[in-house]
């Protein structure tokens, strides 16, 4: 599990950004990456791989490993560590490969 240190908790309460993660509302700090917000909320796994369906979560936090791919506002294959949270954002766990939009 991960938590925010006190100064970051204060900022998260001051400059609140609300997102939903798989339908659950989550309050985070302005400037958080989606991945940091997930860690702070106790979410370690954010997708299931396209090859075996194994659970994965953020690993490198700097945009190189592509293990933190999630659906953001309906767009699949977004890097949670590179995307910033914004008010009203919806984040969904990504199951397997992305699908071609209908």
């Amino acid at each position, binding site marked *: *599990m*991960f*938590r*925010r*240190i006190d*100064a*970051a*908790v*204060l*900022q998260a309460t001051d400059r609140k950004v609300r997102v939903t993660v798989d339908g659950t509302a989550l309050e985070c*700090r302005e*400037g*958080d*990456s989606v991945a*940091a*917000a997930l*860690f*702070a909320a106790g979410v*370690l*796994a*954010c997708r299931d*791989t396209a*090859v*075996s369906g*194994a*659970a*994965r*979560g*953020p*690993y*490198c*936090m*700097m*945009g*190189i*490993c*592509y*293990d933190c*791919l999630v659906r953001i*506002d309906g*767009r699949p*294959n977004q890097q949670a*560590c*590179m*995307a*910033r949270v*914004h008010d009203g*954002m919806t984040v969904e766990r990504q199951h397997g490969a992305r699908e071609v939009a209908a």
Partner: protein
Amino acid sequence: MSLDIDIDIATCDLLVVGAGPAGLAAATEAAALGLSTVLIDEQPAPGGQIYRAISSTPVQNRAILGEDYWHGQSLLEPFANSGARHLSAATVWSINAREPQPGTAGDGQPAGFEVAYSVARPGQDPQAALLHCRHLILATGAQERPFPIPGWTLPGVITAGAAQILLKTSGVVPEGRTVLAGGGPLLYLLAYQYLNAGVKLEAILETTDSGQWRKALPHVWGFLRSPYLAKGLKLLRAVRKAVPIVSGVTALEAIASAGGQVAALRFQAAGQRHSMAIDQLLLHQGVVPNTNLSRAIGAEHVWNERQDCWEPQVDAWGATSMPHVSIAGDGAGIAGAVAAEHRGRIAAVHAAAALGRIDIATRDGKAAPHHAALARATRGREFFEVLYRPLPQFRRPVGDTIVCRCEEATAEQVRHAARIGCQGPNQLKAFLRCGMGPCQGRLCGLTVTELIADEQQRHPRDVGYYRLRFPTKPVTLGEIASLPQTQASRDAVVRFKK
């Protein structure tokens, strides 16, 4: 064919890729020398990974991240006032040499580069754009060396660098049973920063060979005169006092819970099997140059024997084998953040000379203090490199350990392919799709080179590396379609006009 350029493409003398210490220093210096300069970087604010979130971190108690981190602030204002343009949240994915245009001014001169990049804006699809420059400085820095142990793909196993980014950017720290494993300066720095932040660590598992001390001793003289010595010893003492340290760890494995997350560790130390229940594991075994752009652009790379990694072949100015492509900072070979700043400035004065803005004497004069400072900053690094050299078993895994995280290819699959005659990393793509996932070899490339070398008893230098091509980061067709088009390029594909 007509050359109707009816599209808006920004142009500059110099494009610097990456806003860490090397990139910030290079862009600032180049702008001061009168070059029109653009600094492009993936993050929303400058700093790179070492000074990540330097202008926005919620960790305002300076004692937690330490003065070496806060030094990064000194780069921001000179850059902001330099006149260089900053393109933030922008990812470069293609760089191509432009064809010289006959009849134009500069005929016969290198025509520079066309660079494609994408900008991510919150809530929107990324937009691609083009930029033309005459000289390039790649300052794409380092990445952590792959650490392929059983279970390194489990949720809850992250790199020490990732954990440090969580701390810097969001003040997010681990809670519960946390273990750091591996070796290298960053592992102990993170432990120290956690101590300062009041984070409890269960243990540090050192995977470097305790016999390395003897091998490192011949390099100790440089280290004794190094700027790291006093700082490093103070830090190590504090960490050793507060955190149980297990030395000589081998056969490290992360074990999953029923829910598929990391729940336990197994390892050997001093001839004994050990296991412990954990909530998260932070792995680190050093950093290596991030070479995806320098490789895709076609620069020569060499194998670094002491660091077991590839690095671009550069001269004392950071110049690569490609005309008008320079590399500064850890991307040109690991030397650290202070060195990166000086290497950035050296590359910038070289760029000004290469573009004919200053003469060679001026270049040499301006660079002299930075060459001297660079020598001081890198003194003693050999000692670290030998001391923290990762053990072969942590670079050359066996069995079911995943090597390619994207395509889930295992060490035994790679070794088997090598045994039955796979010629090298590029043919391995056809065997196993290794290196063909979205990370484009960043997390498996070094391991694949070493495994093939191991099985075929060849030198990694002879085994080689993946042939990397643009786009160096995944882009959507939508992004490519959003590029500005010339009338000629439209006419080339549009058959029916309404």
